[in-house]
């Protein structure tokens, strides 16, 4: 008996010791991090420091200048750290939004409304904010008369983090040339390389950017509110550390420096005291990004005060959940980004004949299947009936959608019904009344009958995670269509979109192309190109409109021509209804907890940005 008890006790003690050991086990030093505090020599990839947790993070926040650590939750890891990891030190354009890195051009901060004037619930700045780019690493520039180059003057005295010196023209040239090099893993390298040939240091603070073409939005593209932003990094750091260590070392110039990073978990950054824009220095002592994939848990953490801002991801947080959580926590909801268009694409209408890049004839795409199983696909090379029949089918399906109702029910009327693919809305300068798509189920049934489908047809609707899938499916059922809603994600469908074998009805998004200006190049995902497109290829007399607007008709003097080209494009798309616009919805929603201020740029991407403007009142 005694032996048995001792054995049992021993077992229990062992188990408890084991539990204690693993629970208290040392944190893994996974961190290819981290740079020490401000002003330290660079200790690349070695200083995996102790990691604050959700509980003790607050305690570690020391307030050297202003108080507090702002805790920010996102569904995915802050993309800032791609820069450390991307081969030659360049990565996704979005990384500059998180505070450690900065691009060549920096948009002036948006105007700040008085916090007390914000009122209840949602608030926003003007989405038409006119960017002033003279506050960045480049303080001025000049475009050559023949548009062959842009000469930038670099601001003197912009310090790199971790004592890597100050930014010079060499650093700028290195950053760009490396980003567009053949070996680059910069995800936007080809888009950047489309118009930038090389960047050359002329003297210590002057660089020439040699370009093959100038586009209307070049300055935005190179800035912190653009989509091909290149972070400026230290060439000396690269030369000294080598690629591997460089990629895990903070060599940026932004208002925050990286303290620790645990992959997929959390990132902590400290205020950079020597940040060159005195009025742009961080208001909080530190920022902690924590990855919380589950939206409900983010909102729970907001309620408990574990996080100050819930950021969601590019697709934002759920509308209904957000409004409820903001109400309970006393927080505010911020709308980000240009409204995104939800659109139904009638895949398989590959009508282009010529490759825009090579001028060679295009082969028939594997997804071009104009048969009775795909009544929405028209055959421009077959008899005329196919095209007209498919057009009527597409129009019928578009007319069966009650856009007003969807906006009211699904987006609490925060969105706008969409009728065009170019972003034109009733009443604007481009608008034509014939573009309006009426909600008319009776006419839709009539169209189906005329097309030879009086009893409807069956098809699979690839809706991904679109919240509109179910209601649209029901509206289509009401006109006699037999729908199977398929929630296969974008990731799984993407290969078929790249190889042009996609021939289904699906949501190419959401959200679709952003509604920005009426004169920018439209229809970029409908042209015949290598890469991910919307499984529709415009015919040879239409797709050149995109290239004309994107590459040729540049500058304000051609604005009207660009608008007219887009009107011509919309005339074509409205007639043939290759994609059915449904509704614009806010691109992304963020919640800012009670007692927290934050003044981000809201008019660009729907991504987190401007952490230096966060202020904590607690």
């Amino acid at each position, binding site marked *: *008996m005694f032996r*048995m008890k001792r054995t049992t006790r021993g077992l229990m003690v062992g*188990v*408890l010791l*084991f*539990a204690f050991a*693993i*629970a*208290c*086990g040392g944190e*893994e030093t*996974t961190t*290819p991090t981290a740079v020490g505090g401000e002003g330290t020599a660079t200790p690349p990839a070695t200083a995996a420091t102790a*990691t*604050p*947790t*959700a*509980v*003790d993070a607050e305690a570690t926040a020391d307030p050297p200048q202003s108080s507090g650590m702002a805790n920010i939750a996102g569904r*995915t890891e802050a993309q800032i*750290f*791609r820069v450390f*990891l*991307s081969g030659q030190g360049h990565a996704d354009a979005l990384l500059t939004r998180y505070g450690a890195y900065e691009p060549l051009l920096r948009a002036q901060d948006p105007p700040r409304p008085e916090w007390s004037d914000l009122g209840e619930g949602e608030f926003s700045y003007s989405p038409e904010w006119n960017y002033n780019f003279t506050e960045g690493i480049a303080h001025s520039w000049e475009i050559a008369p023949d548009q062959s180059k842009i000469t930038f003057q670099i601001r003197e005295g912009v310090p790199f983090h971790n004592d890597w010196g100050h930014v010079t023209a060499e650093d700028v040239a290195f950053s760009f040339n490396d980003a567009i090099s*053949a070996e680059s893993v910069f*995800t*936007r*390298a*080809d888009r950047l*390389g*489309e118009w930038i040939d090389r960047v050359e240091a002329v003297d210590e603070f002057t660089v020439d950017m040699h370009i093959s073409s100038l586009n209307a939005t070049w300055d935005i593209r190179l800035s912190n509110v653009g989509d091909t932003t290149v972070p400026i990094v230290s060439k000396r750091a690269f030369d000294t550390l080598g690629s591997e260590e460089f*990629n895990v070392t903070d060599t940026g110039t932004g208002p925050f420096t990286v303290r620790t990073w645990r*992959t*997929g*978990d*959390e990132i902590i950054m400290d205020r950079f005291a020597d940040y060159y824009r005195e009025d742009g220095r961080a208001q909080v002592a530190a920022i902690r990004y*924590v*990855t*919380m*994939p*589950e939206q409900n*848990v983010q909102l*729970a*953490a907001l309620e*408990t005060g*574990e996080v100050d801002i819930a950021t969601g991801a590019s697709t934002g947080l759920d509308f209904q959940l957000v409004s409820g959580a903001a109400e309970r926590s006393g927080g505010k909801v911020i709308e980000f980004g240009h409204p995104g268009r939800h659109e139904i694409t009638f895949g398989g209408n590959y009508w282009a004949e010529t490759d825009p*890049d*090579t001028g060679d004839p295009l082969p028939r795409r594997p997804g071009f299947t104009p048969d009775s199983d795909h009544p929405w696909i028209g055959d421009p090379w077959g008899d005329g009936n196919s095209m007209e029949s498919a057009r009527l089918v597409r129009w019928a399906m578009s007319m069966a959608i009650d856009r007003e109702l969807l906006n009211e029910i699904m987006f609490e009327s925060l969105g706008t019904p969409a009728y065009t693919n170019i972003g034109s809305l009733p009443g604007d300068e481009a608008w034509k009344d014939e573009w309006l798509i009426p909600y008319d189920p009776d006419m839709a049934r009539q169209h189906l009958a005329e097309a030879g489908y009086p009893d409807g047809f069956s098809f699979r609707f690839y809706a991904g995670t679109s919240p509109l899938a179910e209601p649209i499916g029901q509206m289509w059922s009401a006109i006699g269509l037999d729908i199977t809603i398929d929630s296969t*994600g974008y*990731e799984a469908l*993407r*290969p078929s979109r*790249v*190889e042009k074998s996609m021939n289904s009805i699906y949501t190419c998004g959401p959200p679709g192309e952003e509604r920005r200006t009426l004169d920018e190049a439209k229809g*970029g995902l409908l042209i015949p*190109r*290598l*890469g*991910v*497109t919307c499984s529709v290829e415009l015919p040879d007399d239409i797709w050149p409109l995109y290239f004309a607007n994107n590459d040729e008709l540049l500058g304000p003097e051609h604005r009207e021509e660009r608008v007219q080209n887009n009107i011509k494009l919309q005339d074509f798309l409205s007639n043939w209804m290759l994609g059915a616009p449904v509704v614009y919805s806010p691109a992304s929603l963020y919640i800012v907890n009670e007692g927290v201020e934050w003044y981000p740029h809201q008019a660009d991407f729907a991504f987190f940005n401007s952490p230096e403007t966060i202020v904590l009142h607690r």
Partner: protein
Amino acid sequence: MLKYVLRRLAYSLILVVLASVFIFALTRARGDPRYMYLEDAYITQERWDAWGREMGLDKPIVVQYLIWASKAARGNFGESQVNRRDAWGLVGERLPATLQLSGVAYVLVVLVSVPLGVMAAVKRGTVVDLIGRTFALLGQATPTFWLGLMMILLFAVYLGWFPTSGRGGLASYVLPGITLASGSIAASLRLIRTSMLEVLDSEYIKFARAKGVSSNLVIWKHALRNSLLVPLTYFGLLFAAFMTGTVVVETIFAWPGVGRLAIEAVFNNDFPVVSAVVIFFVLVYAVTSLMVDLLYAVADPRIRYG
């Protein structure tokens, strides 16, 4: 015994090789793997071609597999498509978090299910048994994701006892640990109860009781020891299941482990990481089942000579 061990080792090796073939085949199931990896809408033909050469797509498929497999055998699954990190290294970085969470859950399962299972068997037909069986039923029927969210709501939001998520101090282990363990506690409780009932009904237990051996000694020494032979397999594989089955719990509780790495890699089409994680899972199962089989052979001589 040596012959038995060698045979089991060979089986494990075959399992891993077959899994590697399967994983490689998946990368080619959609045809050109570049279609899966391509991130942007804009790519030049030159870059596309260079990419193909880099991936060895100009070689026969068998050669491509052999190249991939030989690299994988050395832990080289390539770089993550998302952050250009070594894929196998990423698994290694996330492993401690998963090990710790799995360890906590495993201990919970043992500490709760063994005494409860024994008590339910000994007190068969009583309230204790009823409670045990009800607990088992609820535990197995409750979805993990729902339980996790409810635990967060109750213990983090309403009561404020534990953090909602994240991996930090001891408190952060409680909710995810219980959530992960709940289903397995129920399953093992039922298993132990059934096994105990069988043993308690055997002749040698009756004989022990007839000899006047104390009830505690009969239950906890003779009956429990013999009834653990069946659950041994379950407990062995349970750890492997925890190691590979934490995807949901790690996602809900923002736990930076291998499970979450797997789901992130799937969503990102990050095939090098997916390959590394799946091979890791296969290895965990292969090694664990091998260990269980060897233990079983030690515990029951009929196995090794059978």
